[in-house]
């Protein structure tokens, strides 16, 4: 079994050189995922000079760990959005997300991108009478949002269903192939792409300047296309970071279901789809078991639960891939897309929940329009500076009480273990040395990797992620390698290393 995503394994590596000079452009984009590359395309196509700075490789962040589904509905349910907002809002959400799917298709057709894009039905499936009442509410909301929805009593799955909500003409694709191909087409056409160019500092102002290790980009506008914006921003108090797990399995029967299937289950649904690789191998993908980042001990068990769920419903031959992905839920269930405030030249795109491929594309469309001075019909719906305290209060309080509780776990003279010598190979534990907390990981060759356990974003104590072998911050979702390098999340600076000589 491979511990990577099927998308990453089925896409060719990209080779863009790191930023080695000082550039001056109209728009600097932090992050080379679907949001950043689509925005780069739209802005360069409109004549703007653009630089995309990707810390790893194109699509290497969240895009490469997604499920490759594009749909008009939302993870958090349209009927819940409708109850929070109104029918006009869910109409806008459905229309904007439908437009984003069409945008993806237009780009694919325009550049003849080979990424397995195909239109397919979306199904929300209930297995129980209780879940069917939820499904009925979502069905009603879909109709009121202007979507052509149907209730079926059958679905192309090999297990009993009570009912299925169906929406035709949604889409699936290989997100890595799409983003990498789009990057290839836009590179050099007004858009310069740099990989392995982590932004180490941001100077906001007029102009804005992004600094990397070996160069800088001066830009009129900055787009944070990093899922969670980099640095300390008020919007982080409005976001809840979550991780989810994905398995890609082969079936004995060879009878793989078509379309996007969300199977209702309390408290979360499972997302199921089929993917056929370039070599013709088919896989059944199942995603589920979400939890707050950095707050699940022994998270390997999430894969066990996911596999058990899969095996109860499908004739599984073998699990071939497994990976995990991160998403951020917005306090009022709508993403934050646009300028930080009406006169700001800094744009953010976050709070997509598990709907990031569609919302990422939509964010690129909205932000591009804002920068180009084109009126976008949905910019106000998703504006980050919107004020709706009553709609926001519930999750805002829940998430920030949770953050406060995480801070209270930073008790002096208390860590996972007293000495690093008690840490066995493959294990990560926090340890207190001379009054300071460190994150210690002993690799399989017994070498100790020791970094500060204090998150460089807002100073929570990081927790060990057993599955991904990373240090994850339970407060705002920053993640670090065992050597302290930022993987994702709002943190900009790496965790400082500590010498491992003369340790207790």
């Amino acid at each position, binding site marked *: 079994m491979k511990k990577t995503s099927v998308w990453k394994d089925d896409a060719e590596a990209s080779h863009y050189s790191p930023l080695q000079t000082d550039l001056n452009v109209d728009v600097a984009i932090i992050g080379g995922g679907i949001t950043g590359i689509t925005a780069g395309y739209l802005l360069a196509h409109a004549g703007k000079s653009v630089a995309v700075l990707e810390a790893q490789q194109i699509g290497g962040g969240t895009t490469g760990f997604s499920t490759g589904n594009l749909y008009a509905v939302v993870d958090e349910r349209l009927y819940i959005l409708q109850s929070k907002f109104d029918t006009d809002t869910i109409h806008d959400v459905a229309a904007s997300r439908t437009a984003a799917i069409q945008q993806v298709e237009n780009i694919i057709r325009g550049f003849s991108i080979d990424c397995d894009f195909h239109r397919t039905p979306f199904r929300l499936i209930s297995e129980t009478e209780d879940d069917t009442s939820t499904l009925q509410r979502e069905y009603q909301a879909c109709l009121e949002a202007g979507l052509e929805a149907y209730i079926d009593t059958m679905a192309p799955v090999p297990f009993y269903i009570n009912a299925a909500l169906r929406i035709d003409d949604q889409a699936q694709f290989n997100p890595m192939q799409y983003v990498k191909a789009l990057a290839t087409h836009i590179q050099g056409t007004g858009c310069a792409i740099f990989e392995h160019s982590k932004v180490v500092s941001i100077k906001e102002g007029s102009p804005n300047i992004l600094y990397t290790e070996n160069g800088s980009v001066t830009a009129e506008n900055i787009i944070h296309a990093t899922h969670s914006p980099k640095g300390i921003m008020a919007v982080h108090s409005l976001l809840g970071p979550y991780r989810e797990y994905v398995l890609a399995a082969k079936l004995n029967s060879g009878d793989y279901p078509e379309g996007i299937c969300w199977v209702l289950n309390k408290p979360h649904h499972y997302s199921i789809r089929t993917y056929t690789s370039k070599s013709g191998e088919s896989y059944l993908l199942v995603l589920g078991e979400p939890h707050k980042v950095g707050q699940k001990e022994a998270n390997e068990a999430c894969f066990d639960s996911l596999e058990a769920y899969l095996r109860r419903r499908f004739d599984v031959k073998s699990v071939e891939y497994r990976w995990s992905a991160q998403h951020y839920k917005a306090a009022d269930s709508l993403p934050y897309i646009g300028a930080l405030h009406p006169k700001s030249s800094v744009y953010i795109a976050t709070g997509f929940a598990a709907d990031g491929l569609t919302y990422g594309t939509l964010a690129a469309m909205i932000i591009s329009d804002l920068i180009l001075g084109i009126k976008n019909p949905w910019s106000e719906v998703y504006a980050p500076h919107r004020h709706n305290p009553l709609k926001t209060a519930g999750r805002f309080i829940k998430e920030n009480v949770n953050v406060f509780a995480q801070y209270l776990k930073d*008790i002096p003279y208390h860590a996972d273990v007293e000495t690093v010598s008690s840490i066995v190979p493959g294990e990560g534990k926090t340890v207190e040395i001379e009054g300071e907390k460190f994150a210690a990981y002993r690799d399989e060759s017994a070498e100790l990797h020791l970094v500060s356990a204090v998150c460089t974003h807002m*100073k929570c104590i990081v927790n060990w992620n057993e599955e991904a072998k990373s240090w994850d911050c339970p407060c705002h979702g920053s993640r670090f390698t065992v050597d302290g390098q930022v993987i994702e999340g709002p943190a900009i600076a790496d965790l400082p290393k500590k010498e491992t000589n003369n340790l207790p």
Partner: protein
Amino acid sequence: MIITAIDLFAFAALLGVFLLVFILKNKETPKAVTFIHGPVAAIGLILLIIYSFQYRPAPIASLALFIIAAIGGAAISVLDITGKSIPKWLALLHGSLAVAGFIFLVAFAL
């Protein structure tokens, strides 16, 4: 009410001394202590404000010192959480003002 405020300020002071040691040694402050110290002191201050509205004479000198100390404490918290270095003089000034306020308050209560 004033006795409860004194008790809370005394507890906050103990935690504050503990935090000050970390700051003076250029070490990360334990956030559990930081986030107990601040709210405990804030509750003490609120009680003192309520007392000052309800009774005469009011411990005005003490109240003024605690309010200035609280502003300093809030500034220190923001600097700490946002990863900026905390000026040692600010931490010492904050502590000194709070201790002075505490002494005035105890003297007032006696």
